[in-house]
């Protein structure tokens, strides 16, 4: 106990400040996807909307609406359309309204 305290004083960190050191495997944890707008055609959008098991993705012909709240980071959309999606590495934080958890990505409308 005394040793830990003295060591902590030497390191200038006695108590645990969280997160003290990020564990290296955190980077490998699944996180919600991010979408490359330039590759989001309507067909791609349709495929994405159809494949998501949580129904987190929807589109209204102009925007791909991604509900971060409903996403379970399952990775299905990344398997189905690997070129337009990517790992975000971002763990979304809390929000006051559910509207704040919606992300919009513009679709490439001109391509049909």
């Amino acid at each position, binding site marked *: 106990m005394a040793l830990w305290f003295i060591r902590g004083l030497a390191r200038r960190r006695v108590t*645990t400040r*969280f*997160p003290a*050191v*990020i564990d290296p495997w*955190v*980077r490998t944890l699944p996180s*919600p996807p991010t979408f490359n707008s330039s590759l989001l055609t309507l067909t791609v959008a349709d495929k994405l909307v159809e494949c998501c*098991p*949580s*129904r*987190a993705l929807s589109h209204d012909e102009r925007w791909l609406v991604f*509900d*971060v*709240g*409903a*996403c*379970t*980071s399952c990775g299905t959309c990344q398997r189905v359309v690997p070129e337009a999606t990517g790992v975000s*590495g*971002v*763990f*979304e*934080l*809390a*929000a*006051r*309204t*559910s*509207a*704040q*958890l919606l992300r919009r990505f513009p679709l490439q409308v001109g391509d049909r």
Partner: protein
Amino acid sequence: MTGVTVRSGGDEGQLAARLEHNIHTLFGRSLYVRTIDTGSCAACESEIRLLLAPHYDLQRLGIFFTPAPRHADVLMVTGPVIRAMEVALRKTYDAMPDPKLVVAVGACPLGGVYDDDEFAWGRLDRVLPVDVYIPGCPPSPLALLQGLLLATGRLAVKIDHVSFEVHLEATK
């Protein structure tokens, strides 16, 4: 939470600002949380429970867990609100004295996988008025903490998101 880009929150207006102030003055000192599992897989429950472990140690922030809704300020709901738990959820909510907050934890009460399942309500805000939404499946401890702190109003503005790349640079 050093090295974070802060962007001010949305356009909530006068009413929201007043609500914020009230919550801050009412809940500023200590917060009692009551968790209720309305049919989840218990991953969110594990994450919440481990917030009490020494690594994050919720109690030093003044946040405590209580099983008695009469003593609780915040109701943390996990799970997609299956119909079998509806009565229990409503009774728990009714038993909590005002002012109270409802926090939806995880993807399930936010309209995740079970949104149109016939045995569940799917979204928590179809049943109760929700104050804070915490996304993630399960949410990271940071998200849970931020959600609770949001609930207390200690964070005056909504912080958009935190990238671990940014974070790692700050601690190096």
